[in-house]
């Protein structure tokens, strides 16, 4: 239908003695339409230029200086970037962020998918279940991080109380001052927090799959798993790609939960890359150096998102 409309709206090639006149008229009309289009697009372009392009360009400029937040600065070229590669603090924070992303991305997708399967049909109680699963995401990460901080306290927190009753932990376990325990607690917490969003994204995709496909699979005697594997998963590729990209970018930009629960500790062992940038910029006042780290993070996130988009692209689109 789209190609038919395009064909109808496209001016026909005119031949014969009046062809030149027609071409001029169409050319004039085309120029007028282009001008109108540019006028209509200009407010959006101005907003993008002011709020995205200019800050990004300015950030790149700051990253090439020794900007100290307050006081004079000088242009130092790419020195910030070369120092960044050899900075053990930055390298550790990047590796830690990669580890954290690798741990939470899979479970968020699996739990979100399972919940989406549970509530995708409009059955009795499905609206309540959807709300319940999505509620942690609505309440917000910072609020829930403070809640968890209270419950992780040795001797008084509910986490230790419940786990000690089950014989799984000592009542005095200090979760936030041990690297392994802190990472475990934060990962479980983030999976609990973020699965609701993945569920929503996947459920929206699942509800768009025509029922006829499942009915014909039922006629062919397909099992539940065969229907999931052969119908649901292939048709959900785009939604899965979107959920994965949102999850990976969110993990790369993790800050709140680490800042509130561990403050990057013990030492700097649970310091993600965004917290490293924050510490460098607003605690050490090395704004130029921190901005170089931020630009490097933007590039890494951009590359990972592009690779994910490429790997999970819709093959029907590629063939078209």
């Amino acid at each position, binding site marked *: 239908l789209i190609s038919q409309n395009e064909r109808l709206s496209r001016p026909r090639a005119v031949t014969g003695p009046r062809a030149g006149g027609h071409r001029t008229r169409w050319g004039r009309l085309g120029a007028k339409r282009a001008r109108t289009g540019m006028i209509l697009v200009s407010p959006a372009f101005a907003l993008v230029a002011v709020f995205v392009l200019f800050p990004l360009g300015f950030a790149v400029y700051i990253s090439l200086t020794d900007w100290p937040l307050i006081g004079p600065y000088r242009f130092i070229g790419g020195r910030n970037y070369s120092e960044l590669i050899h900075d053990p603090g930055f390298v550790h924070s990047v590796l830690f962020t990669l580890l954290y992303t690798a741990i939470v991305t899979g479970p968020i997708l699996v739990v979100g998918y399972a919940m989406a399967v549970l509530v995708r049909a409009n059955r009795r109680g499905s609206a309540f*279940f959807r709300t*319940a699963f999505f509620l942690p995401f609505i309440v917000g990460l910072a609020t829930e991080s403070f809640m968890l901080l*209270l419950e992780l306290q040795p001797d008084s927190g509910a986490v230790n109380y419940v786990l000690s009753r089950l014989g799984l932990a000592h*009542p005095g376990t200090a979760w936030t001052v041990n690297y392994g325990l802190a990472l475990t607690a934060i990962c479980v917490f983030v999976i*609990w927090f973020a699965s609701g969003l993945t569920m929503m994204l996947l459920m929206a995709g699942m509800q768009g799959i025509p029922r006829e496909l499942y009915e014909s699979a039922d006629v062919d005697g397909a099992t539940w798993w065969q229907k999931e594997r052969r119908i649901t998963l292939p048709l959900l590729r785009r939604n899965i790609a979107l959920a994965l990209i949102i999850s990976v970018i969110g993990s790369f930009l993790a800050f709140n939960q680490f800042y509130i629960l561990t403050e990057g500790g013990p030492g700097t062992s649970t310091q993600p890359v965004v917290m490293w940038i924050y510490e460098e910029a607003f605690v050490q006042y090395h704004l130029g150096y921190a901005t170089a780290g931020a630009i490097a993070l933007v590039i890494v996130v951009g590359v990972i998102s592009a690779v994910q988009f490429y790997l999970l692209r819709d093959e029907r689109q590629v063939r078209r």
Partner: protein
Amino acid sequence: VSRNRAGFVLYVTAGTLASIVFLLPLAWAVLRSFMPSNLVTQAPS
């Protein structure tokens, strides 16, 4: 019919258990907010 009923029972059970996992911590935090602050930081008895 029995297969449908079993499916519904499974759906309600799984949904209820998952709802508890997602709602209980939030409900507990609301309850905690009504406690006096000296009681919140005290060891449970």
